[in-house]
């Protein structure tokens, strides 16, 4: 049992990237099990961050600094373990739909998902159904997330769902949607599995859908 873990968690919480790197390096040097470093040092820190954000004690930039510090630690540990042993909450493909270039919301969701332990494949903006389909085939995610800011472009969400059906992939992946004009009613109407009003609840939604 390493005594680095408590301090590692604290450094994640305070978003000190350099400190997280050096502590992770020290733990590796001391011969700690890399999986333990992740599960007992890095992840517990990030769990605190998630809880504090939800209760309004931490703000988005602070959460993202913590996530960045966490990722720096992960990058050091990852080469030491087999890919299948790396803890991941799941894979999510995410993008802004065709005809829409707005991406701040989608990027926020993407970062919040990463900080919650998900592997995120970001297909960018103006992503047509084919682009989502290709990413689903290539990465086999548990969830795809689509974002739209406009009432005209939100219609494209349905096209992706239809294409997934045609390709026989609809039951292989959960579909979640979000953006200013989106509501639960709209999600139900187009046959999505879920809607999240903000980035924090998007991560919760993925957790629920992948449970």
């Amino acid at each position, binding site marked *: 049992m390493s005594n680095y873990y408590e301090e590692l968690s604290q450094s994640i919480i305070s978003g000190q990237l350099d400190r997280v790197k050096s502590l992770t390096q020290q733990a590796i040097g001391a011969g700690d099990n890399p999986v333990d470093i992740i599960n007992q040092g890095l992840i517990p820190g990030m769990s605190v961050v998630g809880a504090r954000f939800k209760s*309004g004690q931490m*703000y*988005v*930039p602070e959460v993202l600094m913590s996530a960045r510090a966490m990722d720096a630690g992960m990058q050091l540990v990852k080469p030491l373990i087999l890919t299948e042993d790396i803890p991941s909450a799941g894979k999510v493909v995410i993008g802004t739909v065709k005809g829409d*270039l*707005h991406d*701040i*919301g989608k990027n*926020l969701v993407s970062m919040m998902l990463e900080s919650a332990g998900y592997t995120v494949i970001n297909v960018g903006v103006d992503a047509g159904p084919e682009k989502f389909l290709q990413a689903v085939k290539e990465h086999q995610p548990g969830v795809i997330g689509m974002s739209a800011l*406009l*009432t*005209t472009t939100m*219609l494209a969400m349905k096209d992706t769902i239809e294409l997934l059906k045609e390709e026989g992939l609809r039951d292989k992946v959960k579909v979640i949607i979000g953006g*200013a*004009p989106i*509501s639960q*009613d709209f999600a139900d109407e187009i046959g999505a599995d879920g809607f999240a009003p*903000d*980035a924090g609840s998007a991560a919760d939604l993925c957790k629920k859908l992948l449970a």
Partner: protein
Amino acid sequence: MPVRSNYVENTSPMFRILSPSQCEEILLAAQEVLERTGVTVYDEEARDILKKAGCWVDGILVRIPSAVVNKALRSVPKRVTLCNSRTGSRDVRLEGYNAYFGTGSDTPFTIDPYTGKRQRSTKESVSNACKVIDALENLDFVMSLGIVQDVPLLISDRHQFEAQVLNTSKPIVTTAHDIYGFADIIEMCEIIAGGVEELRRNPFMTLYAEPISPLQHAWEAASKLILAARKGLPVVYTPCVMAGGTVPATMAGVLTQGLAESLSGLVINQSTREGSPFIMGGVFTIMDMSSTIFSYGSPEFNLLMSSLADMAHYLKLPMFGTAGCSDSNLVDEQAGIEAAMSIAMTALSGPNLNHDVGYIEYGSTSSLEFLTINNDVIGMARRLVRGIEVNDETLALDLIHKIGPGGHFLCEDHTMKHFKTETYYPSLIDRQRYESWMENGSKTLFQRANEKVKDIIENYEPDPLPKDVQQKIRAIVERSEQSIAK
């Protein structure tokens, strides 16, 4: 009569955030952003126009030399006038410190005044909203207060414009999905105005378009700026930026980058046709770092709006401002506080075409009760801005002497002559004594507003358009429906 020199008179309150030196520094900084960082332009034609104008085009990235910006600032008209669509009367003069108020446009939701429920906005809700705006004396122009969503969405902009123009004669600021929607709307306006030239001379419609922050002009936005210039019609171009999210967290950084986005839009517009009417917008605010909303009620939102007004006056550009809106999810005390603060600051700062009156839920929902309450707040702000007139008549020394210690002023001609113009009487704000308020049903401000809204919807008739004009507009809407059915 004495001769009097060195007398300085304020005929209105004096209010500003930025000094001329600070405005100049921010302008130069925005020009540096355009010259160094540049903007992306997703419309090929716009890139060609920019290249011909002397910009440096590298793929979709366009960098704009300061001289090109200066040229656009010289060619753009310093004033834009918007008219009544029925009479052509030139009511809304966007120039100097004139501040006009109107509603906002594309909320996905609205509060139904009959059920109190938040619902998706429809053609009927937009029609009702426009009737209410038309009836309220302190609202000068109309935006739809909702996206029409109970029609095919791809051509809903045509329905939205039809619902607006049938129910109000006040100038309309409208959105369109793309240039095809915009072209159909222009065609409707030309029919109403009686011709292409007539509309250009007395425009009653201006299009709303926006870049995508940071520093991007999507195809839809750039092509609208070009079409508006070709048609010689005014266009509002309004970056909606959130501090810490799509622009720096610092207020000066917000102003710099937001201004760079506006000025690059101006260059696209003016390079298409010099002298085209252009209205600089800017909903500059913060991203709330807890909820991530785009705030419509924070003090920074007001500070940025007032300082952008200082910039607009410095640049002598007509400006599209924002006021009378709230982050609150319902029409409550918070909504009242936020709207009152923004309306007062807007009236004091003097941006010209001030929209979003009646928005709640950080711009996602509209409320006609909130709009109607704000109609009174705007009236109060108008009184504040009228300031205090100081002269022999208003000092009233002879009258004070005549009444003397212990008398009263109630029965004086002077009182009779001045009390109604010196004081503002709002219609919904309550000043009743407790007992009469009880006798009248002890109603809250919201309840009184709700009654007024329903009364307008049920009893008010806006000036109709001639029947044949209505039919021609309908034909354009139907034509667009057929075009997507193919």
